[in-house]
């Protein structure tokens, strides 16, 4: 081993060791500071704007004092729709990969495809959604174009989470199910999936957070306008979400209070994110309690 040469103890060994331990601690603490400053700055900027009126008013197009009610609604609506579309596909693909694909070339090929889809930049998915749904299918900028394209972003994450959670199901559990005379499908649906459900749910919450914050895809598929009605469940109207609104008011610049609105929107998004993270921790603890 060539390593042996370098492992001699010299006078500098100990100070260097201590120094580098310090550096590692400093880097790690640095990230904590970055996060604290980040969240702190966003919340501090947004705090004066945040009140019930801001959350429950319609946005203005030219005057100051608009709210974000429809954007908040669209964000949640789009997340729910896209999860509803991607969950069956992601679950199915995850089940196939963990239970049916074996260990050979098929598995490696499908994994490669899912990794590729997961790594595809959201702006590329946005272009795809724009060509296919907005233009070719003539759905124009609408909730349905946005939801379907957003689902493409979720599918690889849900697939991966399902696969990992199903692989973690103890073998004895499945064998016991087979022993009771269950078919493979029954074992998967009634034994493995319920066992893996908490893990999959954690993944779903994380996916929801990602979809909630996504903007590039929605700018090009769901558009930067919103319906004038409030709860507008139609799928054919444009649906600007919170993140798109945040981007649009900052870069468009026709609103006199664009800065305040952007700050307030950012604070709302950070708060939602923190809530989702709490939910994930809660679920995680539930998993650990059960598998203990």
């Amino acid at each position, binding site marked *: 081993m060539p390593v042996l040469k370098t*492992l001699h103890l010299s006078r500098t060994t100990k100070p260097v060791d201590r120094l580098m331990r310090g550096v590692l601690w400093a880097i790690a603490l640095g990230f904590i500071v970055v996060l604290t400053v980040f969240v702190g700055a966003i919340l501090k900027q947004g705090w004066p704007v945040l009140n019930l009126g801001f959350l429950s008013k319609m946005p203005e197009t030219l005057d100051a004092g608009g709210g974000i009610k429809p954007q908040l609604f669209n964000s949640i609506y789009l997340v729910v729709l896209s999860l509803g579309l991607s969950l069956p596909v992601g679950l199915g693909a995850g089940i196939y990969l963990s239970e049916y694909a074996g260990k050979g070339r098929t598995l490696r090929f499908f994994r490669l495809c899912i990794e590729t889809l997961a790594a595809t930049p959201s702006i590329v998915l946005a*272009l795809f959604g724009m060509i296919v749904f907005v233009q070719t299918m003539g759905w124009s900028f609408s909730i349905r174009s946005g939801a379907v394209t957003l689902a493409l972003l979720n599918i690889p994450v849900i697939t991966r989470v399902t696969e990992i959670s199903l692989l973690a199901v103890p073998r004895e559990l499945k064998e016991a199910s087979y022993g009771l*005379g269950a078919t493979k499908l029954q074992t998967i649906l009634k034994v493995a999936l319920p066992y893996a459900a908490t893990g999959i749910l954690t993944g779903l919450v994380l996916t929801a957070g990602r979809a909630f914050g996504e903007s590039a895809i929605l700018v090009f598929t769901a558009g930067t306008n919103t319906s004038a009605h409030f709860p507008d469940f139609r799928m054919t109207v444009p649906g600007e979400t919170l993140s798109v609104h945040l981007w649009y008011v900052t870069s468009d610049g026709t609103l006199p209070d664009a800065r305040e609105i952007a700050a307030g929107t950012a604070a709302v998004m950070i708060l939602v994110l923190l809530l989702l993270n709490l939910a994930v921790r809660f679920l995680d603890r539930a998993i650990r309690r059960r598998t203990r």
Partner: protein
Amino acid sequence: MNDLPDSTLSPPSPLAVLAQRDEPAAPVAAGSQEARPALNFRQSRLSRLADRWSHLIFLGCSLLVVLLIGGILFFLASRGLAAFVPMAGNVGRTLRLGEVFLSSDWAPSSDKFGILPFLAGSLSVTGLALLLAAPTGILTGVFIAKLAPHWMRNLMRQVMDLLVGIPSVVYGIFGLTVILPIVSRSWLKDAPASGFAVSALILSVMIVPTIVSLSTDAFESLPPSLDEGAQALGSSRWQAIWHVLIPAAKPRLITATVLGLGRAIGEAMAVQMVIGNNPQWIALLRESTGSTSFLHTLFTPAATLTTELVQELPNTASGSTWNNVLFAMGLLLYLITMALILATRKLGQGREA
């Protein structure tokens, strides 16, 4: 198949789990004839049929992903390649490859479509971001895996989870309202307050969680004998990390960095909000050579492949040369991503061999 022989009830613990799921009040007395199996699996013809054909549904879901990969490639190519090949629906002229990929002259209104500024912009921003994120991310990974006490490990996981979850527009607004004012108040105030440095800084924070979590996994999956051996030979903690652990984890660390690179090069909104969106940045730099320091060039307003797409795609007519070139840029991004994923595969194979 309906009456189960007693022998199938012999492994009691998993069954107990099953039983609790269905009827927690009645524990299964293993071995007794009355004990009902907790889950009643009815073996009708229907369920056998379902079992036989259901895997096709699951296979279909997986194939859908494959189809999507191909579909994205096909549709992006159908629009992107229209810039170079005459196609139906083209209203503009077709371009030669050279005048797009080898020219730094981007002026669509006067029919000049050189995308070199965006390619160079993407590569420089990504490169700078990696320069910041890769060393810090890998060192944080080794810190979490090998050095940190338990509470610190958990805390760092939380921090990285939050950092990865923050939406890119929020990163953008942070850069816009916090970092840029700081830059313009500093000794750099005569420099244009946007550009590479700020974008790279924000990007590096965005991709660090990817690099940290993958490199933590890499260090945790190393056999403990490596670490123990190094320490038995009398190495200090740092010597073990630097001379043994990092070289041993190298292929996976490179994979982590490549995936971070992939995330950075595809990021659009955060970069678009702070980079200044100036497609003529190469010309600007060329004009001012000599008079500006290297640090000032870092703050030149610039543009990347992604920012240009966000900036100009909504304003171009479908089928025009301008529009087609923008889609060609998207296609290029997609091909870069695919190449990066394939590269991580090659690295992985090298490790197994």
